[in-house]
């Protein structure tokens, strides 16, 4: 179906009512499971090519420094070195511009420094050599003269009058006059009159909170293999969440025609948003173009920490008024987020998500995007939303405590529903927040007794979800099996979900369908796998592509029987005459039609290309029990329950996995994970020994409840589930820890030293 035939209408009318599912909702084995447990799956670093060189990157040891000179002569003279590149080897046609309008220049500047090193780890030059060891040795021979400049890595310090200016002129027109040049974007929204609302409240609480930058913590470091000739034709294999985006950016940064660069996405060992942009891919291609050989680049874990994109860190002020009956009368928030030395900290999402779960007559939110001398932030699951929930839900928890109210009953009383004006403006369509709160209230966890020293916390969370440009093709084989080409890298089990949805339409077993993530030369454009969009958008496209194939199958059956096309219908893998008037024909199985498809009109395929715009927003409610040791300050999460609206769970096991994954990453973010910078502006903990992500022994069994309030914008009602699950954990855990410790925790992570300090401060110690 062409784009102009696909026109979702007001409110979304894609939902197929009364669908009795046969395959959707079942839990078959994952199609990529055997490949992954046997080592057959090929990840980014597994790709090789004849004559391949190895690349290495020289990185700045300074947080902020002018690059006075770069002398590569000694490196180039080293035996085995085939190419050295600097910024001069990239496009000079891309110009800076204020705010996000200059994003392509920002990406280029991040890939390879121009006049200044902007953070510890910023790429300065790169080498390709016949071995990885030679490449690393050659990097050490590159002589760089730096003029070290004052630096700033803290978001509040970067806004102070005396903060060093990172790049003057970066601020766009949204920024009000009088703010420091490091404030580069500004957001303000809301409705009603908060002053009046606060005046009406029985209790008003105002408090401040901070969160630290955290890394997505994907197990697979970035890796790629690039081949680029002097004729401008190239190939690239890389681990990415979006290879069309990689193609587009690399082509721009290297002055190539987009279609001349073919990009293949490898299997991916985690992304969570961190692989939605490029870091080393253009460098490998630039080295290859200069050396005329394939070049492989693989990041070390330290490079991943120092030079890829962690999430933003934040500083937030929240004020909420509540009546004795639990009604919220007004809410306001100020959200300051730093996203490194470039615009893009997701402060607008922080602001827009902050109060979205609640029906508020008076609400106001302000966001500041602030530059610091840190790496360029990248997306991380629902970018911006978890921090907002931490601050807002902490204050709501405190209001409930002081007014003696049940925290879930207060959330239910104020919950956004269909028709509620969202805190960010428009009215909600059909949403499932109330259903998640009610399910949480009914869950045995909520009424279970606590042990001494334990506390219980709850939180709601919100994320938008996304659609995006999508292409899918489906081809039937002569034996009646099907192969599907999607363009969205499988970061969360999407191949399984696509196969289930196609099985539902075609009426053939799940096992008879193979789903492949196609390269950029084999399928139309696909947006990145982000925004929890894949099961929604690629799923919708898969259903439409399968329906197109079914229409053709019915046409072939009609031709065989000599009846009208509309006298044939499709059921459970068979073409059938639609009734007695259509004729008495034996139903035709799909394999009987495909076996002769070459002689009856040619191959039978289906395809669909569109930008689905009906992604439904989603909500979650989490319950957490935590135990705090007052002697050591250590915290153990002893029970965790995730309740989330999935719209429709296509493969419930994967949905539950997404719920659990968000909770697990949230536990790390809440309790231990943080980027630690020294006074010299250098990252102090660029490795998993010092940057502590949760391991299995840190986690409880995480219970899940799938709520299904169908999204009207998808035929089966799907809502994205990959991101919302990380929105409530920071707040729910903070509320549990605060209850267990008996002191309000306002700064993440709640690591043992912070908890001990809070306990000592409370006791006057």
């Amino acid at each position, binding site marked *: 179906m062409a784009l*102009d035939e696909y*026109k*979702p*209408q*007001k*409110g*979304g009318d894609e939902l197929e009512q009364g669908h009795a599912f046969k395959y959707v909702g079942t839990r078959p084995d994952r199609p990529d499971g055997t490949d992954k447990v046997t080592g057959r799956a090929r990840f980014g670093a597994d790709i090789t090519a004849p004559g391949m060189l190895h690349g290495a990157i020289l990185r700045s040891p300074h947080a902020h420094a002018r690059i006075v000179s770069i002398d590569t002569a000694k490196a180039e003279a080293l035996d085995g070195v085939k190419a050295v590149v600097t910024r001069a080897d990239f496009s000079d046609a891309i110009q800076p511009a*204020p*705010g*996000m*309008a200059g994003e392509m220049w920002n990406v280029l500047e991040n890939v390879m420094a121009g006049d200044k090193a902007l953070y510890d780890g910023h790429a300065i030059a790169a080498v390709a050599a016949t071995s990885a060891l030679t490449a690393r040795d050659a990097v050490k021979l590159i002589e760089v003269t730096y003029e070290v400049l004052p630096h700033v890595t803290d978001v509040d310090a970067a806004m102070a009058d005396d903060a060093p200016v990172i790049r003057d002129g970066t601020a*766009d*027109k*949204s920024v*009000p006059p009088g703010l420091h040049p490091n404030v580069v974007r*500004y*957001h*303000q*929204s*809301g409705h009603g009159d908060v002053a009046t609302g606060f005046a009406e409240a029985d209790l008003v609480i105002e408090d401040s909170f901070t969160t630290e930058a955290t890394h*997505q913590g994907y197990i697979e470091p970035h890796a790629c293999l690039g081949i680029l000739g002097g004729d401008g034709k190239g190939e690239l294999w890389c681990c990415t969440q979006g290879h069309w985006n990689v193609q587009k950016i690399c082509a721009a940064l290297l002055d190539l025609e987009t279609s001349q660069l073919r990009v293949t996405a490898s299997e991916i060992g985690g992304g*969570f*948003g*961190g692989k*939605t942009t490029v870091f080393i891919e253009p460098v490998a291609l630039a080295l290859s173009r200069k050396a005329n050989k394939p070049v492989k680049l693989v990041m070390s874990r330290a490079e991943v920490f120092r030079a890829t994109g962690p999430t933003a860190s934040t500083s937030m002020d929240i004020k909420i008024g509540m009546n004795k009956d639990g009604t919220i009368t007004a809410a306001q928030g100020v959200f300051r987020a730093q996203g490194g030395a470039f615009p893009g900290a997701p402060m*607008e*999402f922080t602001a*827009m998500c902050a109060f979205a779960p609640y029906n508020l007559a008076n609400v106001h939110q*302000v966001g500041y995007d602030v530059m610091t001398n840190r790496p360029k932030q*990248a*997306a*991380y*699951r*629902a*970018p911006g939303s978890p921090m907002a929930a931490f601050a807002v839900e902490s204050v709501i928890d405190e209001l409930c405590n002081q007014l003696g109210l049940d925290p879930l009953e207060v959330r239910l009383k104020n919950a956004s529903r269909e028709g509620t004006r969202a805190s*960010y*403006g*428009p*009215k*909600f*369509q059909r949403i499932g927040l109330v259903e998640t709160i009610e399910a949480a209230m009914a869950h045995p966890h909520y009424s279970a007794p606590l042990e001494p020293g334990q506390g219980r916390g709850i939180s709601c969370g919100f*994320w*938008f*979800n*996304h*659609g*995006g*440009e999508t292409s899918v093709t489906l081809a039937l084989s002569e034996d009646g099996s099907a192969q599907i080409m999607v363009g969205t890298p499988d970061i969360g089990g999407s191949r399984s979900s696509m196969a289930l949805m196609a099985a539902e339409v075609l009426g053939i077993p799940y096992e008879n369908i193979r789903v492949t993530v196609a390269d950029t030369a084999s399928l139309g454009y696909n947006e990145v796998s*982000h*925004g*929890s*969009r894949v099961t929604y958008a690629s799923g919708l496209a898969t259903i439409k592509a399968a329906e197109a194939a079914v229409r053709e199958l019915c046409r072939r059956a009609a031709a065989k029987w000599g009846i009208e096309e509309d006298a044939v219908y499709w059921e459970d893998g068979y073409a059938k005459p639609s009734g007695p008037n259509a004729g008495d024909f034996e139903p035709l199985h799909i394999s009987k039609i495909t076996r002769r498809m070459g002689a009856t009109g040619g191959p039978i395929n289906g395809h669909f290309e569109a*930008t689905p*715009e*009906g*992604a439904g*927003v989603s909500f979650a409610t989490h319950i957490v029990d935590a135990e705090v040791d007052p002697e050591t300050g250590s915290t153990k999460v002893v029970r965790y329950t995730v309740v989330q609206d999935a719209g429709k769970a296509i493969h419930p096991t994967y949905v539950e996995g997404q719920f659990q994954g968000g909770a697990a990453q949230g536990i790390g973010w809440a309790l231990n994970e943080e980027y630690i910078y020294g006074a010299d502006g250098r990252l102090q903990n660029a490795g998993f020994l010092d940057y502590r992500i949760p391991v299995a022994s840190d986690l409880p069994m995480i219970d899940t409840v799938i709520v299904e309030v169908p999204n009207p*914008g998808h035929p089966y009602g799907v809502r994205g589930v990959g*991101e919302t699950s990380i929105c409530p954990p920071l707040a729910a855990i903070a509320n549990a820890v605060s209850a267990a410790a008996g002191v309000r925790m306002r700064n993440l992570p709640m690591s043992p030293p912070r908890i001990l300090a809070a306990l000592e401060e409370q006791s006057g110690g």
Partner: protein
Amino acid sequence: MVEVHLWSGLRAQAGGREVVEVEAKTVGEVLSGLVAAHPELQEVIDAGVSVAVDGRIIASGLTEPVNEDSEVYLMQRLKGG
């Protein structure tokens, strides 16, 4: 005419207004109408915006229909992780 609600941070680029009326039958015409009325909004729109039409958030579809009685909100461009 369609009433387009801006986020309040855009008042400086829209002559102090938070609601701007434009002639539009599609999302694309909403955006071009906003720029015609207030050229300073061009930079914001170029940087990326979404448009909520009757609660449905449209990230990029310029041909999506808009009715005179539609509730239209300009929003910052959505992206995720």
